[in-house]
Protein backbone atom coordinates (compact mmCIF):
# COMPACT_ATOMS: atom_id res chain seq x y z
CA UNK A 1 0.00 0.00 0.00
CA UNK A 2 1.28 3.45 -0.86
CA UNK A 3 2.46 5.68 1.94
CA UNK A 4 0.04 8.37 3.01
CA UNK A 5 0.13 10.71 6.01
CA UNK A 6 -1.85 9.76 9.08
CA UNK A 7 -4.76 11.95 10.16
CA UNK A 8 -5.52 11.09 13.76
CA UNK A 9 -9.16 10.13 14.21
CA UNK A 10 -8.88 7.08 16.33
CA UNK A 11 -10.07 5.83 19.66
CA UNK A 12 -8.77 5.31 23.16
CA UNK A 13 -10.10 3.05 25.90
CA UNK A 14 -8.84 3.05 29.48
CA UNK A 15 -9.43 1.09 32.68
CA UNK A 16 -7.84 1.22 36.14
CA UNK A 17 -5.99 -1.95 37.07
CA UNK A 18 -3.94 -4.61 35.30
CA UNK A 19 -5.06 -7.59 33.22
CA UNK A 20 -8.33 -6.02 32.05
CA UNK A 21 -10.05 -7.23 28.90
CA UNK A 22 -11.12 -4.91 26.10
CA UNK A 23 -14.72 -5.15 27.26
CA UNK A 24 -13.77 -3.87 30.71
CA UNK A 25 -12.24 -0.65 29.35
CA UNK A 26 -14.09 2.67 29.08
CA UNK A 27 -14.10 4.44 25.73
CA UNK A 28 -12.82 7.96 26.46
CA UNK A 29 -12.40 9.02 22.83
CA UNK A 30 -14.82 11.93 23.15
CA UNK A 31 -12.61 13.39 25.92
CA UNK A 32 -9.26 12.97 24.16
CA UNK A 33 -7.99 15.62 21.77
CA UNK A 34 -4.45 14.35 21.23
CA UNK A 35 -2.80 10.97 21.57
CA UNK A 36 0.67 9.67 20.74
CA UNK A 37 2.52 6.43 21.21
CA UNK A 38 6.19 7.16 21.82
CA UNK A 39 9.21 4.87 21.65
CA UNK A 40 12.51 6.08 23.04
CA UNK A 41 15.79 4.29 23.22
CA UNK A 42 18.32 4.93 25.94
CA UNK A 43 21.98 5.02 25.07
CA UNK A 44 25.00 3.55 26.80
CA UNK A 45 28.37 5.22 26.82
CA UNK A 46 31.13 2.73 26.16
CA UNK A 47 34.43 3.54 27.86
CA UNK A 48 37.43 3.86 25.66
CA UNK A 49 39.94 1.03 25.47
CA UNK A 50 43.29 0.82 23.81
CA UNK A 51 41.70 -0.96 20.87
CA UNK A 52 38.47 1.05 20.60
CA UNK A 53 37.72 4.73 21.14
CA UNK A 54 34.98 5.92 23.49
CA UNK A 55 31.54 5.55 21.85
CA UNK A 56 27.78 5.35 22.22
CA UNK A 57 25.75 2.16 21.93
CA UNK A 58 22.04 1.37 21.89
CA UNK A 59 20.50 0.79 25.31
CA UNK A 60 17.08 -0.31 26.48
CA UNK A 61 13.82 0.83 24.86
CA UNK A 62 11.12 2.77 26.70
CA UNK A 63 7.52 2.82 25.48
CA UNK A 64 5.05 5.49 26.56
CA UNK A 65 1.67 6.99 25.67
CA UNK A 66 0.90 10.70 25.61
CA UNK A 67 -2.71 11.69 26.21
CA UNK A 68 -4.21 15.21 26.04
CA UNK A 69 -7.70 15.14 27.51
CA UNK A 70 -10.68 17.12 28.73
CA UNK A 71 -11.47 16.55 32.37
CA UNK A 72 -14.49 16.85 34.63
CA UNK A 73 -15.12 16.40 38.33
CA UNK A 74 -18.23 14.29 37.78
CA UNK A 75 -19.02 11.23 35.69
CA UNK A 76 -16.53 8.69 34.41
CA UNK A 77 -13.56 9.76 32.38
CA UNK A 78 -9.82 10.12 32.09
CA UNK A 79 -9.44 12.13 35.29
CA UNK A 80 -11.39 9.60 37.36
CA UNK A 81 -9.40 6.69 35.90
CA UNK A 82 -6.03 8.36 36.47
CA UNK A 83 -7.03 9.54 39.95
CA UNK A 84 -7.98 5.97 40.92
CA UNK A 85 -4.71 4.64 39.51
CA UNK A 86 -2.70 7.18 41.47
CA UNK A 87 -4.42 5.97 44.64
CA UNK A 88 -3.51 2.36 43.83
CA UNK A 89 -0.14 0.93 44.79
CA UNK A 90 0.83 -0.18 41.29
CA UNK A 91 -0.67 2.81 39.44
CA UNK A 92 -1.50 0.68 36.42
CA UNK A 93 -4.08 1.52 33.77
CA UNK A 94 -4.89 -0.76 30.85
CA UNK A 95 -5.23 1.02 27.52
CA UNK A 96 -6.24 0.18 24.00
CA UNK A 97 -6.04 2.59 21.11
CA UNK A 98 -6.25 2.97 17.37
CA UNK A 99 -5.08 5.78 15.12
CA UNK A 100 -8.12 5.85 12.80
CA UNK A 101 -11.74 4.76 13.10
CA UNK A 102 -11.36 2.21 10.30
CA UNK A 103 -11.55 -1.52 11.05
CA UNK A 104 -8.53 -3.13 12.65
CA UNK A 105 -6.16 -4.27 9.91
CA UNK A 106 -2.52 -4.32 8.95
CA UNK A 107 -2.85 -0.66 7.97
CA UNK A 108 -4.83 0.28 11.09
CA UNK A 109 -3.52 -1.84 13.95
CA UNK A 110 -4.93 -1.82 17.45
CA UNK A 111 -2.43 -1.17 20.22
CA UNK A 112 -2.92 -2.29 23.80
CA UNK A 113 -0.87 -2.50 26.93
CA UNK A 114 -0.50 -1.36 30.52
CA UNK A 115 0.73 2.08 31.47
CA UNK A 116 1.90 3.48 34.78
CA UNK A 117 0.06 6.63 35.79
CA UNK A 118 2.70 9.05 37.02
CA UNK A 119 0.52 12.14 37.39
CA UNK A 120 -2.76 13.82 36.54
CA UNK A 121 -4.27 17.26 36.97
CA UNK A 122 -7.70 18.81 36.96
CA UNK A 123 -8.64 22.48 36.65
CA UNK A 124 -6.75 25.17 34.82
CA UNK A 125 -7.53 28.62 33.54
CA UNK A 126 -10.63 30.40 34.84
CA UNK A 127 -13.66 30.05 32.57
CA UNK A 128 -11.90 27.66 30.19
CA UNK A 129 -12.36 23.94 29.68
CA UNK A 130 -10.37 21.86 32.16
CA UNK A 131 -7.66 20.03 30.23
CA UNK A 132 -4.50 18.11 30.99
CA UNK A 133 -1.62 16.53 29.10
CA UNK A 134 0.24 13.53 30.47
CA UNK A 135 2.84 11.12 29.17
CA UNK A 136 2.82 7.73 30.86
CA UNK A 137 5.48 5.01 30.56
CA UNK A 138 4.31 1.51 29.65
CA UNK A 139 5.07 -1.43 31.90
CA UNK A 140 6.62 -3.13 28.87
CA UNK A 141 6.06 -2.94 25.13
CA UNK A 142 2.59 -2.75 23.59
CA UNK A 143 0.74 -5.58 21.89
CA UNK A 144 -0.11 -4.75 18.28
CA UNK A 145 -3.09 -6.51 16.68
CA UNK A 146 -3.89 -6.39 12.98
CA UNK A 147 -7.11 -8.41 12.98
Amino acid at each position, binding site marked *: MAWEPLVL*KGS*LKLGTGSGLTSGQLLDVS*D*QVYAMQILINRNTVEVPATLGQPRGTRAGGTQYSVKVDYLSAVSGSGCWQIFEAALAAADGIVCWEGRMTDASISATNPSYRGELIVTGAAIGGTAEE*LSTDSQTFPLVSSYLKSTS
Partner: protein
Amino acid sequence: VDVSAVRAEIKDVLQAALTGWRVESYLPESPNPPCLLVGYPTDIVYNATLRAHARITMPIMVLVGAADARSAQLRMDEALGTDSGSVVDALHGTSGTAWFGPIIVKSAGNVGRAVTDGGAQLFAADIVIEFLA
Protein backbone atom coordinates in the same frame (compact mmCIF):
# COMPACT_ATOMS: atom_id res chain seq x y z
CA VAL B 1 -22.94 18.56 14.63
CA ASP B 2 -26.48 19.77 13.99
CA VAL B 3 -26.02 23.55 13.99
CA SER B 4 -29.74 24.20 13.64
CA ALA B 5 -30.50 22.03 16.67
CA VAL B 6 -27.81 23.84 18.68
CA ARG B 7 -29.26 27.24 17.78
CA ALA B 8 -32.80 26.10 18.57
CA GLU B 9 -31.84 24.70 21.98
CA ILE B 10 -29.84 27.79 22.94
CA LYS B 11 -32.86 29.86 21.98
CA ASP B 12 -35.05 27.73 24.26
CA VAL B 13 -32.60 28.11 27.18
CA LEU B 14 -32.51 31.90 26.79
CA GLN B 15 -36.27 32.20 26.34
CA ALA B 16 -36.93 30.14 29.47
CA ALA B 17 -34.46 32.06 31.62
CA LEU B 18 -35.03 35.67 30.54
CA THR B 19 -38.23 37.68 30.61
CA GLY B 20 -39.09 40.59 28.36
CA TRP B 21 -36.89 39.48 25.46
CA ARG B 22 -37.90 37.98 22.13
CA VAL B 23 -35.37 35.27 21.34
CA GLU B 24 -34.83 33.99 17.81
CA SER B 25 -32.75 31.02 16.70
CA TYR B 26 -32.19 32.64 13.32
CA LEU B 27 -31.47 36.09 11.96
CA PRO B 28 -34.87 37.61 11.09
CA GLU B 29 -35.39 39.88 8.09
CA SER B 30 -36.71 42.56 10.42
CA PRO B 31 -35.75 42.23 14.11
CA ASN B 32 -38.32 43.23 16.68
CA PRO B 33 -36.47 44.63 19.74
CA PRO B 34 -35.79 44.03 22.50
CA CYS B 35 -34.50 40.75 21.15
CA LEU B 36 -31.70 38.23 21.42
CA LEU B 37 -30.63 36.56 18.19
CA VAL B 38 -28.64 33.34 18.27
CA GLY B 39 -26.14 34.30 15.61
CA TYR B 40 -24.37 32.20 13.05
CA PRO B 41 -21.08 30.55 14.16
CA THR B 42 -18.08 32.76 13.57
CA ASP B 43 -15.70 29.84 13.98
CA ILE B 44 -16.07 26.06 13.85
CA VAL B 45 -13.04 23.89 14.58
CA TYR B 46 -13.87 20.40 13.40
CA ASN B 47 -12.44 17.26 15.00
CA ALA B 48 -11.64 18.86 18.35
CA THR B 49 -11.52 15.38 19.94
CA LEU B 50 -11.05 11.82 18.70
CA ARG B 51 -14.87 11.55 18.54
CA ALA B 52 -14.99 14.45 16.08
CA HIS B 53 -16.63 16.95 18.41
CA ALA B 54 -16.42 20.45 16.98
CA ARG B 55 -15.45 23.55 18.94
CA ILE B 56 -17.96 26.26 18.00
CA THR B 57 -17.78 29.99 18.60
CA MET B 58 -20.94 32.00 17.98
CA PRO B 59 -22.40 35.35 18.98
CA ILE B 60 -25.64 36.07 20.76
CA MET B 61 -26.74 39.39 19.30
CA VAL B 62 -28.47 41.79 21.67
CA LEU B 63 -30.77 44.37 20.07
CA VAL B 64 -32.76 47.01 21.94
CA GLY B 65 -34.74 49.91 20.51
CA ALA B 66 -32.89 53.21 20.88
CA ALA B 67 -35.83 55.60 20.65
CA ASP B 68 -35.38 56.33 24.36
CA ALA B 69 -31.61 56.30 24.86
CA ARG B 70 -31.63 55.93 28.65
CA SER B 71 -34.06 53.02 28.80
CA ALA B 72 -32.26 51.37 25.89
CA GLN B 73 -28.95 51.52 27.73
CA LEU B 74 -30.49 50.22 30.95
CA ARG B 75 -31.90 47.28 28.99
CA MET B 76 -28.52 46.67 27.40
CA ASP B 77 -26.85 46.83 30.83
CA GLU B 78 -29.21 44.13 32.03
CA ALA B 79 -28.27 41.81 29.16
CA LEU B 80 -24.51 42.48 29.34
CA GLY B 81 -24.13 42.20 33.11
CA THR B 82 -23.65 39.04 35.12
CA ASP B 83 -26.61 39.27 37.50
CA SER B 84 -29.93 37.49 37.22
CA GLY B 85 -31.54 38.47 33.92
CA SER B 86 -28.24 38.60 32.03
CA VAL B 87 -27.20 36.37 29.16
CA VAL B 88 -24.18 35.18 31.17
CA ASP B 89 -26.42 34.09 34.02
CA ALA B 90 -28.76 32.30 31.62
CA LEU B 91 -26.18 30.49 29.49
CA HIS B 92 -22.81 30.12 31.21
CA GLY B 93 -22.13 26.53 32.24
CA THR B 94 -25.35 25.27 30.71
CA SER B 95 -25.34 21.72 29.35
CA GLY B 96 -27.67 20.61 26.57
CA THR B 97 -28.52 17.71 24.34
CA ALA B 98 -27.46 19.41 21.10
CA TRP B 99 -23.98 20.19 22.35
CA PHE B 100 -21.31 18.45 24.46
CA GLY B 101 -20.39 19.85 27.87
CA PRO B 102 -21.00 23.32 29.27
CA ILE B 103 -21.35 26.55 27.32
CA ILE B 104 -18.66 29.11 28.10
CA VAL B 105 -19.75 32.73 27.75
CA LYS B 106 -16.46 34.28 26.69
CA SER B 107 -16.90 38.00 26.15
CA ALA B 108 -19.09 40.85 24.98
CA GLY B 109 -18.28 43.51 22.42
CA ASN B 110 -19.35 45.44 19.35
CA VAL B 111 -21.55 47.63 21.54
CA GLY B 112 -22.98 50.48 19.57
CA ARG B 113 -25.79 51.86 17.48
CA ALA B 114 -27.30 50.05 14.52
CA VAL B 115 -30.03 50.85 12.03
CA THR B 116 -32.44 48.34 10.54
CA ASP B 117 -33.36 48.26 6.86
CA GLY B 118 -36.57 50.01 7.86
CA GLY B 119 -34.65 52.83 9.48
CA ALA B 120 -35.34 51.91 13.12
CA GLN B 121 -32.62 53.03 15.53
CA LEU B 122 -31.20 50.20 17.63
CA PHE B 123 -28.63 49.71 20.35
CA ALA B 124 -26.69 46.52 19.65
CA ALA B 125 -24.04 44.26 21.16
CA ASP B 126 -22.57 40.80 20.59
CA ILE B 127 -22.04 38.27 23.37
CA VAL B 128 -19.62 35.55 22.32
CA ILE B 129 -20.14 31.97 23.48
CA GLU B 130 -18.01 28.87 22.95
CA PHE B 131 -18.78 25.19 23.34
CA LEU B 132 -18.13 21.69 22.01
CA ALA B 133 -20.80 19.99 19.94
